[in-house]
């Protein structure tokens, strides 16, 4: 699925945008938004799981001159999703984290977590999962994008870091000039 156009708009929900993360019903999504409104420690993820997941998200959208997934608190988005509308996805995340740690151990003998690996080794591990088309890679990648760009009420996109990343301004009311080329109108 590469095309989120009109014809396939919501196939996105089923198959394009973080498929396994967004298959629950609207009531659960409402619960997620309410839940996120009251900031809490992790509800589903253990500290170790959260650390590894966060490190993974930080490889998808790294921190450089500008903030990345870590600063946008994407892992909080994931925790809240797993507590609510994506609760059916918990077993996949558990399995995926197990695989992630197994690969971390391969990358560095004795490693007990992905998060503790060096940056280069983390990149190598993520690349290996991408290469092997391990479902955890794409699911978590897409959930990271969603956690960057969903409304901050869902726990990620902290301080609108994700929206600032892409240049989306949530003013929701616009007039000309809409863009640079309006001058030629």
């Amino acid at each position, binding site marked *: *699925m*590469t*095309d*989120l*156009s*009109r*014809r*396939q*708009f*919501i*196939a*996105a*929900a*089923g198959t*394009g*945008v973080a498929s396994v993360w*967004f298959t*629950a*019903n*609207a009531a659960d*999504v409402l619960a*997620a*938004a309410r839940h996120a409104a009251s900031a809490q420690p992790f509800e589903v993820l253990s500290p170790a799981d959260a650390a590894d997941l966060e490190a993974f998200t930080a490889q*998808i*959208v*790294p921190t*450089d001159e*500008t903030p990345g997934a870590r600063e946008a608190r994407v892992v909080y988005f994931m925790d809240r999703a797993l507590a609510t*509308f994506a609760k059916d996805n918990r077993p996949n995340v558990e399995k995926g984290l197990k695989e992630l740690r197994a690969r971390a151990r391969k990358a560095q003998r004795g490693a007990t977590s992905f998060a503790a690996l060096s940056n280069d080794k983390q*990149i190598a591990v*993520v690349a290996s999962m*991408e290469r092997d088309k391990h479902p955890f890679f794409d699911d978590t*990648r*897409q959930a990271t*994008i*969603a956690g960057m*760009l*969903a*409304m901050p*009420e*869902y726990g990620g996109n902290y301080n609108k870091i*994700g*929206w600032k*990343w*892409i*240049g*989306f301004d*949530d003013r*929701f*009311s*616009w007039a*000309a*000039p*809409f*863009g*640079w*080329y*309006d001058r*030629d*109108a």
Partner: protein
Amino acid sequence: MVKYRPDDEVDFVIVGSGAAGGVVAKELSTAGFRVVVLEQGPWRTEKDFIHDEIKAFDGLLTNKWDVSPNTFRKTEKETAKKQPCVLYGRGVGGTSVHFSANYWRFREIDFKEASMKGTIAGTGFTDWPITYQDLEPYYAKVDWEVGVAGAPGPYDPPRSRPYPMPPHPPKSMGVLLEKGARKMGWKPFPAPMAIASKPYNSRAQCVQCGFCIGFGCEVGAKSSSLVTVIPVAVATGKCEVRPSSYVRKIETNDRGRVTGVKYFDGNKTEIFQRAKAVVVCANGAETPRLLLNSKSNLFPNGLANSSGVVGKHLMFNGAGNSVGVFEHEVNGYKGIVATRIVWDLYELDKTLGLVGGGGFDYRFDVTPIGFPGSYLPPKSPTWGKAFKRLVAHNYNRTVVCYGHTSSLPVPTNSISLDPTLKDDWGVPAIRMTFQDHPQDLKLYKYFAERGEEMLKASGAVQAWQQPVESAQFSVHLLGTCRMGNDPKSSVVDKYNRAHDVKNLFIVDGSSLVTCGRGQPTMTIQALAFRAGDNIARFAKQHDI
């Protein structure tokens, strides 16, 4: 709002409250008839409409596959697999609540293309029993009563009244389209949009929030049935709109007449609403499903299906798309989906060997979460620093050139009942069988190619074609109860009355004989105004 008892035999039950159902409700209730509109979804208002992508992805406004699943197969030889393939608005106003509101009229050729250009073997490509001229007064009604903004273009079919509202501002995307199109030798013009460009009929002007497609309008500027015709119908004191009412069967008596409908209320309690006549406006997938689920001794193949063509000739319209990246910020996310269009390829040169035609717009039809997964260049990085940089650079510089096209009515492309799968109410599920005609795939590719050229002519620094493949999912659900003069090959007559049942009318995308060039709602609503007019006339003459 007036309330009717289920055992009160009302004049009309209308199944569905969307683009078509809303219009028919308005026409029949203002003509003085007692009307009940049954809508399977809830009755939302503007305060329910928010810019929450997660909820939109999760089906806040649309049909729910977890309780009402679909199955899909490409050909009749296959066993269909459970797979979402049909998307429509579920709630008062139907899909008109969350659509992007492109309101192209069909042109004369769309009604008689088969006889003008020749039929195609293996398809049901044929002429309509009505012409553009028959429908023109009703297109004008849509312009004025629903509310369309636009300005005449060089290829407009004749119109009896001007647009009631001026076009929307071009935005940078429209400016770029005009530049590219002119370089191609084409004549771009303002897109007709059912969105208020100035205060209209007590509705607010569009604030250009940018959340049209997939979202309800929080200011009521989008001319959905919810804020246009439904309120007029309710204000007559003759029309009850009953939400959370899911119709499972149309009942008939031993004289072959419709007596009312059986539906489930919000508590899944079955209720029978009596009616003198029924108008089905449930969309091109749910309408044939309901007819096929309304079998009886007199109608063993489904109601109104003596022809056997109920559910057949499913059309989606086609798409040939390209994407471009520009040097400066376009900010496509700000404002309505499309502002300018090109109709120079509406009909194609014979020497190309292509069937049909289409039109273009420039658009940016994704909200933030959807962008990184859909409109980055081929072979882009998908994670890491390079990915991060690319998304940051491209989001505001990306333009999609959407080639909207015709598609052929193929009899084997269909909506039927799945033989085993049922929904949560125990009603057989929608099974879709669909494969784009090879001629159509060639057409889509042609439009993607021309679109890429136009993007480059507009000054794109990078442009590429989106892959063209046979569709397995659609929001345009057309042609499945086609209109025609011959009861052997069509389901409704030219007044949208079922050939087989005198007091049953079918009015929605299923009536379309051909699907135009990509924007069907304007024509669906013109047909609905025309049908409403004729149904009221028949009722007054006791000819129902």
